[in-house]
């Protein structure tokens, strides 16, 4: 195992807007993810889960605080430099898939490598697609794939660069139960087999139960953690969180 943490987030604050209408989405969040860990972030809508994930992945800039992925500090980089670092170190799976519409499954998976100027080894790309069970669909365009298949292509794309951190924002949010289970199994598998570090935002207690630990977020602050989560324990904790959130508002 590496010495450096896969993700180190320190005192992260993110404020949207200014003055009276300002919304504080993140309020001093600190988080360290060890290499090969699987963490789920949960919390009510508007608790700042997605903002945390986006800041960790370098898709959004925090107002204050620092983010380091694999020991390299993301914050205070220019857009192009941040993009370069992001595509080397962070893989991202979105709720809405976001495949490039005019590239085939195989071309989509190879795209990050191409953008990085790396040599494309067809074997590696095929292997990545094979791993997510899409060896037969390499030549299909995204519009010719089901939602679950598109998400699996997106996962192959996110993992083909062997990133230090794999971020997933509600990866099962648009999928049916069966496809969702497949995607979650693939995430879990990447952690167990390849020592991938995964940070996943989810609403779903079942999805969270695939993780090693769950971090609960309310109003931009971490209010609880749970190791070895089960569906029942997570669901109970979530119910309590709602009360906590209401209490905070009062």
């Amino acid at each position: 195992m590496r010495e450096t943490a896969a993700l180190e987030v320190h005192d992260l604050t993110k404020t949207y807007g200014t003055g009276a209408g300002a919304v504080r989405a993140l309020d001093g969040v600190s988080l360290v993810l060890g290499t090969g860990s699987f963490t789920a972030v949960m919390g009510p809508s508007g608790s700042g889960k997605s903002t945390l994930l986006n800041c960790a992945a370098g898709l959004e800039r925090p107002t204050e605080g620092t983010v380091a992925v694999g020991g390299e500090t993301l914050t205070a980089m220019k857009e192009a430099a941040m993009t370069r670092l992001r595509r080397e170190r962070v893989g991202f799976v979105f709720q809405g898939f976001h495949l490039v519409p005019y590239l085939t499954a195989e071309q989509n998976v190879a795209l990050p490598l191409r953008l990085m100027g790396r040599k494309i080894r067809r074997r590696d790309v095929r292997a990545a697609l094979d791993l997510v069970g899409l060896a037969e669909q390499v030549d299909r365009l995204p519009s010719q794939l089901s939602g679950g298949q598109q998400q699996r292509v997106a996962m192959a794309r996110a993992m083909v660069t062997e990133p230090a951190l794999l971020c997933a924002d509600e990866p099962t949010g648009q999928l049916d139960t069966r496809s969702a289970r497949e995607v979650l199994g693939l995430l879990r598998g990447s952690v167990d087999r390849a020592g991938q570090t995964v940070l996943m935002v989810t609403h779903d207690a079942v999805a969270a139960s695939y993780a090693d630990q769950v971090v609960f977020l309310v109003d931009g602050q971490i209010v609880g953690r749970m190791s070895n989560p089960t569906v029942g324990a997570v669901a109970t904790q979530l119910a309590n969180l709602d009360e906590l959130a209401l209490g905070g508002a009062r």
Partner: protein
Amino acid sequence: MRGPGIRAATSSIRSRPAIFVAGFVSMFLGSVVVGSFASLLATGLDAGTSAVDQESLVTMASVVGGWGLVIVLFSVASTMTVSVHQRTAEIGLIRALGAVPRQMRRQLTTETAVLGAVACLLAVLPATLLGRRVFSLVQEGGMVTPGLQHVAGLPYVLTASALVLVVSLAAVRVAAHRATGQPADIAMRAGATQGTRVPRLSRWRVLAAVLAFAAGASMSALTLTVMRDQEDPYASMQTAGPAGILWSLGFVLLSPLLLRGAARVLGGVLSRFGVPGYLASYDARRRSHLLAGILAPVIVLVGMGLGTLYLMAIENQAPSVLGELVTEADAATLETLNYVVVGMISTFAAIMVVNTVAALVVDRRREFGQQRLAGATPQQVVATNVLEAALVAVTGLVVGGIASLGTIVPYSLVKLDRVVPDVTALWWVLVWTLAVAVTVGSSWVAVRRAMRQPALEAVGAVT
């Protein structure tokens, strides 16, 4: 079943004017160009106009204006198609909420009608003023009696505007039919992945292209045969000019096909530009139907521009036609008029290029966001688009150039007895430079502006 009424249409337009700009601009400018010739026609048909003046004006307005009309209507129709395509996802959403296809089509046509009515009415004054300017040029050239007054000809100008409006509505109906002819959820998903399905060229379109080529070929042939022996020295010009335009229209109809071919042929060159070249070549191949919206006006710009300019260059080098039938003033007027027409049509086509580029970039913001989320830097996205624009421009230069030969070669054979006229190459350089500058320049500016929006916002992940 009734659809949403005028109020729904106006509030739809008011709430997000940006997506209606392209359609509005094309209908407005189209009406101005066509309307100006209509006012010339009105003056010709005015009761006070002498028979001689009447003939000159009516011929000029109907021949020149007629071809202008064809080009304008084509450009407007292609812009309206792009503007409906922009809204595939929205159409899917409203369908999913329970609108039957007919209601949806009705809303789209009502919106276009409201927008078009405003655009066409606003165009009346500029059209009349432009018509007066063309008229005074004609008069200065001595082609009509000095004392003759220009008539605004409101009914004619309005008729021209109405024609533009009707064609726009027809184009919207056809595009709306395509957009609503599938189950709502498919339409919505197509919007989400931005329609990767390459629609086949419809049989009608291929047929129309074949007809245009046939007509163009016969015009070229007539120039060489029947018209050559006419007493009127300008007779061959009357068929040589339209020949090039018809060839251009044929190519315009086949533009998605041409673009795919060009992407394949130039794939090797594009791949030298790294990832942007790679992305550009696949986009051009798999979504040629979208980029073809830009190619169409480029073909018109190049084909029509080169054809007419070289027509004049050849005419000026040919043995003098001055004599009983043609006075020096006639020759001068004809030349001026040709330059005016080239100026008007190419300005129009150039604006249409910019217009379509801007509409397409708005249409594709989400996709640019997706590229960036996959790890493309803003510079790589901009470079991809500049290369796509360059591919479109080069295709337009070649195809438009070929179309213009339909005018140039026969006319050169008739007047100079040689296949390739020995005239200045300056016009080629000028027209090509203009076409490349407009296409690539507008694309560069529009995409750079789109890059200001954060990638996450562009894909709609945050609002």
